[in-house]
């Protein structure tokens, strides 16, 4: 459903992505991990063209992302994205956050959008907070709202860019629980995360990146049992203690 074919990206003369290829099938959950600065965040942002690429091709379904005639906003609307720092709109209430793109991008009417929004807030356990503003919620709550906001668009896939790394430890699980549930329902997901517990539980594949390269792309069990590269082994031993 999502495929990255030999993509490369440079910042000036520094190459941040080196000939990366990745296939994600419908319903598959892929966890991308690696040391900081390895290019994993950049990689996931290329999937909805928040980062441009200089070489290679990216396909969402049968649509090529970088094709000059591709409708970028329409493609982005089909792929939900969750950011490290939530990025809720601080000037809007929670329910308005959820309704904004539904109304202006999908052209749903206000009632429909609010109904959908409330349904998804219910699902992430925050229905009671719909009239509050983002600043009044905890980090974990904000991130759950951000997930609900993305789901409001009925995405065909979800991208998670380090969704728990800005959270206090006691809030990580409430966000992971929502993600696990989503994965178990069959959502196609690419998650950049260091939460190996999450990876063990629901990932189908684990991708390991270092210095802009995809070093490993393995089935979950194989990756944890016996990573083939030294770098991945070292990384795992460092983060699993």
């Amino acid at each position, binding site marked *: 459903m999502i495929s990255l074919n030999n993509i490369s990206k440079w910042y000036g003369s520094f190459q941040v992505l080196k000939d990366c290829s990745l296939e994600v099938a419908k319903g598959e959950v892929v966890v991308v991990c690696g040391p900081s600065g390895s290019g994993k965040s950049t990689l996931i942002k290329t999937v909805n063209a928040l980062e441009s690429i200089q070489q290679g091709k990216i396909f969402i379904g049968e649509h090529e992302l970088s094709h000059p005639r591709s409708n970028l906003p329409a493609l982005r609307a089909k792929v939900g994205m969750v*950011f490290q720092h939530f990025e809720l709109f601080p000037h809007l209430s929670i329910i308005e956050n959820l309704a904004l793109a539904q109304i202006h991008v999908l052209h749903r009417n206000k009632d429909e959008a609010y109904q959908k929004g409330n349904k998804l807030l219910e699902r992430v356990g925050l229905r009671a907070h719909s009239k509050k503003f983002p600043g009044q919620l905890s980090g974990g709550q904000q991130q759950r709202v951000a997930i609900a906001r993305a789901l409001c668009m009925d995405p065909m896939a979800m991208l998670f860019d380090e969704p728990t790394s800005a959270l206090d430890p006691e809030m990580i699980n409430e966000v992971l629980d929502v993600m696990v549930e989503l994965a178990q329902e069959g959502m196609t997901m690419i998650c950049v995360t260091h939460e190996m517990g999450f990876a063990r539980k629901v990932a189908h594949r684990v991708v390991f990146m270092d210095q802009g390269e995809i070093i490993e792309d393995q089935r979950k069990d194989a990756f944890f049992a016996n990573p083939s590269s030294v770098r991945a082994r070292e990384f795992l031993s460092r983060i699993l203690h």
Partner: protein
Amino acid sequence: MERLDWSGLPQVLPTLWSGMQITLQITLLAIVLGIVCGTVLATMRLSGVKPLAYFANLFVTVFRSFPLVLVLLWFFLLIPQLLQALLRIPATTDIRLVSAMVAFSLFEAAYYAEIIRAGIQAVPRAQFNASLALGMRYVQVMRLVVLPQAFRAMLPLLLTQAIVLFQDTSLVYVIGLADFFRSATNIGDRDGTAVEMVLFSGLVYFLICGATSGIVKLLQKKAVR
């Protein structure tokens, strides 16, 4: 110093009020058009489209490089015919007022553009990305997400600029337009009450600007929260 004579004040109040109307008309129109054009200029400058950014930059630089008095005179002396043709103004309208309005609006647009540009740039880039990720287009992102946040933060600055503008309208005397201040000094010259009139108009400016400053302070407190 001679004793001040306030006895003539009630009779001249209507004249002063018609002057104040001119002042307010120019101020309000220049604020509205200045903010609208300033927003357009600021978004042009930040759009990343080279010709648009270049034009906006040129506009801002030109208008900020000349004293307001000069801009006023130009619009009055050099291009009234052009204005008349462009805006299809009936020949009976006071061309001085129209040229003052246009000059102030464009001049303020240049200053507002810079305030608004800073305000837009203060909104985190990630907010932009989050909006794009939801499928919004550039104009939607600006209108729905970035500008509302930017304006909220900028409101005190915009009001401060409005106060400056309100005071600057007194410069229209150079094109012979009788705004509030000009009316006051005219009356003073005519009736030999120059000191009284200058004192009185000073008080009026002080009250209006003081009240607006009070609002600014209130808003700043709110914005900090």
